[in-house]
């Protein structure tokens, strides 16, 4: 038993390591190649990447792919970061666009998410369904309507043509609605009883609790805007105004060492963001799915269920997401609870009594097929 588990673990580890290498390889490749000299790159990949077809003579037929630089050089970095201001100019332009869109969208999403998650008004569900639909529409569909409006507003060609539609995104509202829903109403009620108005509640209670979700929205959004290709192509028209994401694909074949360093320049901000917000991002992604599992609804309706899940919650990857402390069970932990976990579709249910102060006692198992679980 333990031996087979051990070999299983080793196999798992090997498979995971191999997969990770495959996944990370493109990045490693870019990083090591950014330190190669222009000559080395042309000699190795000139046949594939060089845009000039005239000097066929000095480019070899075979390509020579290798990871470790043979002639290490910082010339590419010197060119991109210090010698020519173009690249860094584009870099800051892209960063500015991303900051504007991300800030605007987060604000809008916080307000909208709070409204959708914590209030009821006629037609709300319909509007929310509409948002989910909008969220799923591919860019190519929304680009046409966007263009019509921006044309009427006389914004085509200016940066506001990219920023304004970017700010009004359904995804942000959707994600934060899901996140805010997981904050129990009792917390909000407590804040209201303390005399906080709605804005204060949102700012001081809801947003701090949903930090992970908001961080994940910020980073996902930032990445999306950082990588945008279609909107600037269609809305800007003036090539000089293009952000880094498009500028990059235009210069890529001109000078190989610069092209590789520009790749590094383009991945730098998202890499730093990722390393810094890694945990928040993962928790946020998880959070967006949790509501769909219906776990939170069960917790809300049935405090015992929540109690029975605390052990599981402590096992959870990043804590705070699955369960929030509830006033009514926090100190009631010693009382006898009767937790029932249901799995109606699997037809499996089990029942555990938890005597006061003691550990859970396993009851005889109730396994029913096709049944509707165990009645409480």
């Amino acid at each position: 038993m333990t031996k087979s588990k051990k070999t299983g673990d080793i196999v798992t580890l090997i498979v995971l390591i191999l997969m990770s290498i495959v996944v990370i390889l493109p990045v490693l490749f870019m990083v090591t190649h950014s330190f190669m000299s222009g000559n080395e790159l042309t000699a190795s990949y000139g046949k594939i990447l060089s845009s000039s077809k005239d000097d066929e003579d000095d480019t070899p037929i075979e390509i020579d792919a290798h990871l470790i630089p043979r002639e290490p050089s910082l010339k590419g970095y010197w060119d991109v970061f210090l010698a020519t201001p173009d690249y860094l100019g584009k870099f800051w332009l892209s960063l500015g666009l991303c900051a504007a869109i991300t800030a605007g969208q987060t604000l809008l999403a916080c307000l909208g998410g709070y409204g959708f998650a914590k209030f009821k008004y006629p037609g709300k569900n319909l509007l929310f369904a509409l948002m989910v639909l909008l969220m799923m529409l591919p860019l190519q569909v929304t680009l046409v309507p966007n263009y019509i409006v921006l044309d009427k507003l006389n914004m085509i060609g200016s940066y506001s043509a990219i920023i304004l539609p970017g700010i009004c995104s359904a995804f942000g509202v959707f994600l934060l609605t899901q996140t805010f829903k997981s904050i129990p109403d009792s917390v909000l009620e407590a804040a209201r009883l303390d005399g906080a108005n709605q804005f204060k509640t949102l700012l001081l209670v809801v947003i701090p609790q949903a930090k992970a979700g908001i961080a994940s929205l910020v980073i996902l959004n930032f990445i999306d805007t950082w990588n945008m290709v279609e909107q600037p192509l269609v809305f800007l028209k003036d090539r000089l105004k293009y952000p880094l994401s498009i500028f990059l694909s235009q210069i890529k074949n001109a000078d190989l060492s610069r092209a590789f360093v520009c790749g590094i320049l383009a991945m730098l901000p998202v890499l730093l963001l990722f390393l810094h917000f890694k945990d928040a991002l993962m928790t946020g992604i998880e959070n967006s799915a949790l509501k769909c599992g219906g776990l939170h609804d069960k917790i809300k309706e049935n405090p015992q269920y929540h109690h029975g899940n605390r052990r599981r919650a402590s096992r959870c990857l990043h804590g705070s997401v699955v369960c929030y402390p509830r006033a009514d069970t926090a100190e009631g932990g010693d009382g006898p609870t009767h937790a029932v976990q249901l799995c109606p579709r699997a037809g499996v249910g089990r029942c555990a009594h938890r005597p006061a102060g003691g550990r859970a006692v396993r009851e005889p198992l109730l396994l029913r097929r096709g049944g509707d679980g165990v009645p409480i």
Partner: protein
Amino acid sequence: MKHRLSLRSKDALTGFLFTLPALVGLGTFFVVPFGITLKMSLSESMGSSKFVGLKNYQDVLKSAAFKLAAKNTFKFFGVALPCILILSLLIALLLFRNLKKYDIFRTFFVFPLVLPVSSVVLFFQIVFSDLGVVNGVLEHLGMHAADWTGEQAFWVLLILYLWKNTGYNVVLFLAALNSVPPELYEAASLDGAGWWKKLTRITLPMIAPHTRFILVISIVNLFKSFREAYILFGDHPDQSIYMIQHFMNNNFINLNYIRLSVGAALVFLVIFALVGLLLGLRDKDEGGHE
């Protein structure tokens, strides 16, 4: 009683006001102009708003370009969705064996999601070009080199899609696996259920609601893989990956707004049906819990 009612309606108004900025923004930039697009799709031409019924739709549906685009898009959906669901579930199951120890791998798998494709495009060009690494390896093994930028571009796009989006799904599947009460597995073990039985009788049914959400996210991301296709293969790629997004984009460049609006309306219809199906399923499920 009256007081309570007014409180409730005041609450409703506050909620509505909170959502108002988002609704106004989405309305001006998406919903209202989409209405205009729909109207345009039923008009004779850009200049005249004469109503011609579904004539434009007939034209587009008959056109070879649209047929090809629709066929390829559905083919890509049909191959990519099962691939990514199975692959990410498998990885999630592997990671779930020991979450603490394998946490670093989760980070690796999510990393491509944040990476701009344009920053690694050189890598993919080198790997998949005619003289590239993959063909080099294939020839070394005595197999025929394939045309990865032409006929086989479909598979390159699939690999790119899986590379970029599997991590997101793995995180979601891990959250789903985490929400399955471990007592169920203990119970099943006592009952003598094996690994396969536990997977099919407990894990899969328990994570079904999550899986639906993961499917939605995967579809959304699938439409984004056009960006990768565009960066790697340009706006006139090989026929095998000429997809609905290429159709739209090329009509945009040719300023053919009528065809464009028809295309937009058709894609919208398909997605509307998909979302309706998924949301409808969810409602049915939730009804089953009561």
